[in-house]
């Protein structure tokens, strides 16, 4: 096993895009961990960007506010603490929705019959509402806010995992070692947990990694629409929402508010890029057949 791990790490290190992905992830993790040191919070809720000035007009970067000011708030503070928001949303939503998908998919695949039919039809129904639309509508009904965004993303985020794991289980179920375990009288749940899941889990992990990026985009899109994080919350999507309002009335004033878009935008693209690169790299290592 140890040589196997070594081989995988070696393979990852030889792939430049994987190295880039992991380095970016490490960088963002460090920023998230050291956010209180980089930008000391000024109120009891560190996620609220402190008000720098009561003048709402955007102000270009200065030494004191390196990324500029929008809506009276320091963009640098928002970008740094927004890293934590992005990690929180991406990881929690992916983890919970993957677990739900695992549960539903493995029950459907393992037991089969009418239970499978019912669960898969429910999956079909949830898949029939476009993701971004479902997220918008559910968040609106739950009453807006970041937690509500996460709940709605989880509610409509488990189906791909469920389908994947069900398909894999249908394959594994017929394998000799599962038949042997069942013949020995091992409890169904134990068979799933001990024998079936470990042999089908890698594709699920890869899929989950590749989903984190698009999840963070969707969550930020909701904040951008004004449904997600409250005004002034350190969130890349809400920073961009401020920028949009100023941009729409700015014909002829070339790049006047560039800092309001570029800094949060670049943070977001790099964050998503990091997860996509890592996902690609994991897929290449564990499932070389899919390599593009």
């Amino acid at each position, binding site marked *: 096993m140890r040589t196997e791990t070594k081989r995988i790490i070696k393979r990852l290190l030889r792939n430049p*895009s994987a190295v880039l992905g992991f380095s970016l992830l490490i960088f963002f993790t460090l920023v998230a961990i050291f956010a209180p040191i980089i930008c000391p919070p000024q109120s009891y809720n560190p996620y609220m960007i402190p008000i720098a000035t009561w003048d709402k007009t955007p102000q270009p970067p200065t030494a004191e506010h390196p990324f500029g000011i929008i809506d009276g708030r320091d963009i640098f503070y928002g970008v740094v603490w927004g890293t934590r928001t992005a990690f929180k949303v991406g990881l929690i939503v992916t983890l919970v929705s993957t677990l739900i998908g695992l549960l539903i998919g493995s029950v459907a695949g393992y037991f089969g019959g009418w239970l499978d039919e019912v669960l898969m*039809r*429910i999956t*079909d*129904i*949830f898949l*029939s*509402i*476009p*993701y*971004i*639309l*479902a997220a*918008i*509508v*559910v*968040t*609106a*009904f739950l009453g807006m806010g970041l937690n509500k965004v996460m709940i709605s993303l989880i509610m409509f985020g488990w189906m791909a995992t469920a389908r994947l794991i069900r398909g894999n289980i249908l394959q594994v179920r017929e394998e000799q070692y599962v038949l042997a375990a069942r013949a020995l009288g091992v409890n169904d749940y134990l068979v799933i947990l001990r024998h079936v899941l470990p042999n089908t889990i890698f594709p699920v992990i890869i899929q989950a990694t590749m989903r984190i*990026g698009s999840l963070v*985009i969707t969550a*930020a*899109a909701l904040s*951008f*629409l*004004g*449904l997600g994080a409250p005004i002034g919350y350190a969130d890349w999507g809400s920073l*961009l929402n401020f*920028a*949009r309002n100023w*941009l*729409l009335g*700015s*014909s*002829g*004033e*070339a*790049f*006047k*508010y*560039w800092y309001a*878009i570029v800094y949060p*935008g670049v943070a*977001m*693209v790099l964050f*998503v*890029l990091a997860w*996509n*690169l890592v996902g*690609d790299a994991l897929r290449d290592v564990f499932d070389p057949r899919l390599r*593009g």
Partner: protein
Amino acid sequence: MAAYIIRRFLLLPLILFGISLIVFGMIQSLGSDRLLAAYVNPGLLDKLTPNQLEKIKEKYGLKDPMVVRYAKWLKNTLTGDLGWSVVGKEPVKNAILNRLPWTVELALYSIIPVVFVGVWLGIVAAVNRDKFVDHFVRIFAVVGWSFPDFVFGLIVLMIFYSMLGWFPPGNLSFWADVVVKSPEFKRFTSLVTIDALLNGRFDIFVDALQHMVAPILTLSWLWWAYLLRITRSSMLEVLTKEYIRTARAKGLAENVVIHKHARKNAMIPVITVGGGMVIQLFAGTVIVEMVFNRTGMGSFTAVAATQLDYASIMASTLFYSLILVIGNLVIDILYAAVDPRIRFS
């Protein structure tokens, strides 16, 4: 295969029923007090006595059992009565009919650049595997896929509107809007570019297109990245096949081998993905219409959601889902038509 498609057709009503249950359930979970806002001017709500409130609830059937209310709603929906849209200040049906053509037009025009450029890039990359072009295109694909549509849209807006002033936000310029709404401008198709041409107003046609370039570019960008990846890997796989080697051994020109023999076979997975993409493109208009301040189904839905306009939310969710479900069905049928291996299995 026929049996499979028939099964899909039979499941269609079941799925639509399920979707309506989800959406209806969400609305009901709000409780009758919040639902009152759909019937009474919110400013008045505080001034009414609890007794009066109860009466209003009874009048609009808010106290009926859930099943009765669902049946009522279903009956109204099926007969085309979708309720009153607070956001549109008109019946939901009219609000949707007025906005839908803008979105359809945007999505239709986007398909052309998305498919042609995406597939072309994918083929170029596959044919030049591991050369400079290939690396360049692949980097573009990974970076492009990581770009949120609204961030890209804002950058497009910044460059082409703020800086160059070429492509303004909105649907039409003010003067063009006035002309389009005037009685002299006959609406044949309700798609404004086509109507403009039929009316002989080339200036309006150009104006409408000018407003569409930036959103189309934004919608395309993301899908280029996606489609080119699929095309590239499918093409690479086909290029290793025996019949390609045979074609080359026969002495056919490389051009013929690639475009006549390989491309056709490489298109099969692209069709499935591409079909799903067209549907996703439709959903993508929600964000793009908001970024570029356009009137359409997408921005209507987003605004309805932020303002809790229940009737509009319900109708547009059902509408988008209908497109998704029927679209997927059509793709499956097309897929079977293209690939004989599926048709005869």
